[in-house]
């Protein structure tokens, strides 16, 4: 059977849900089910929280605290959805990679290593950038931009953190490969 080129939407869905291998009709059906449940939760949460926090915001004097609570609640809801998606995707085995023979297995392991290395570099750069922006915004020590970039302690801390994340990512990917 000829493989058709994946659309941007399919690529996006695969990336968000972490789907590996063939994205066939069974996987599409499972993704739709999981996505609908997540959407219903988010819809209910957003409509309820909007009304509740609007009432609080109008009636309260400390508006800053209310907005902070709203932001925190949004963060929690976001992580609940991420956690829920990860559990359901893993339970439906949508994240499994199938290897057809030994050569295929070796190839998949190599791909995982490459992805882990790229992931480590990406994680380091993104985290470093975020910490740099936060430090620049809240610059109490009045350090210069260059000294913040080349700060050895920060770089070492984030490098070690990225390496740990990269190794964990590699082992997670290895565990998903099914012989």
């Amino acid at each position, binding site marked *: *059977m000829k493989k058709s080129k994946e659309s941007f939407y399919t690529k996006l869905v695969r990336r968000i849900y972490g789907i590996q291998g*063939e994205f*066939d*009709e*069974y996987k599409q059906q499972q993704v739709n089910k999981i996505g609908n449940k997540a959407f219903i939760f988010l819809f209910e949460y957003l409509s309820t929280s909007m009304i509740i926090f609007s009432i609080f915001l109008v009636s309260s004097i400390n508006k800053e605290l209310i907005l902070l609570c709203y932001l925190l609640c949004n963060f929690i809801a976001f992580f609940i959805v991420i956690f829920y998606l990860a559990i359901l995707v893993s339970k439906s*085995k949508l994240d*499994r990679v*199938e290897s057809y023979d030994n050569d295929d297995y070796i190839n998949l392991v190599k791909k995982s290593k490459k992805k882990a290395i790229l992931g480590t570099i990406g994680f380091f750069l993104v985290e470093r950038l975020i910490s740099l922006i936060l430090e620049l915004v809240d610059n109490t020590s009045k350090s210069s931009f260059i000294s913040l970039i080349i700060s050895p302690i920060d770089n070492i801390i984030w490098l070690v953190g990225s390496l740990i994340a990269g190794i964990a990512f590699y082992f997670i990917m290895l565990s998903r490969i099914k012989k």
Partner: protein
Amino acid sequence: MNNKVKLVRISSGIQQKELALKVGISRQTLSLIEKGQYNPSLKLCINIAEALNSDLNSLFWRV
């Protein structure tokens, strides 16, 4: 839905991974179809029947 996909596949000497690759689905999906735990679309049924050189009646009709 019960079917004869596994029976016909084994009698044709085709491995599960081979058929999955030929039809363009994952081995997991084919396994679910064979066990009757997933009802494939008509399009997929036709693809499976073609890959096994069989027909829809012999594979899926009232097993």
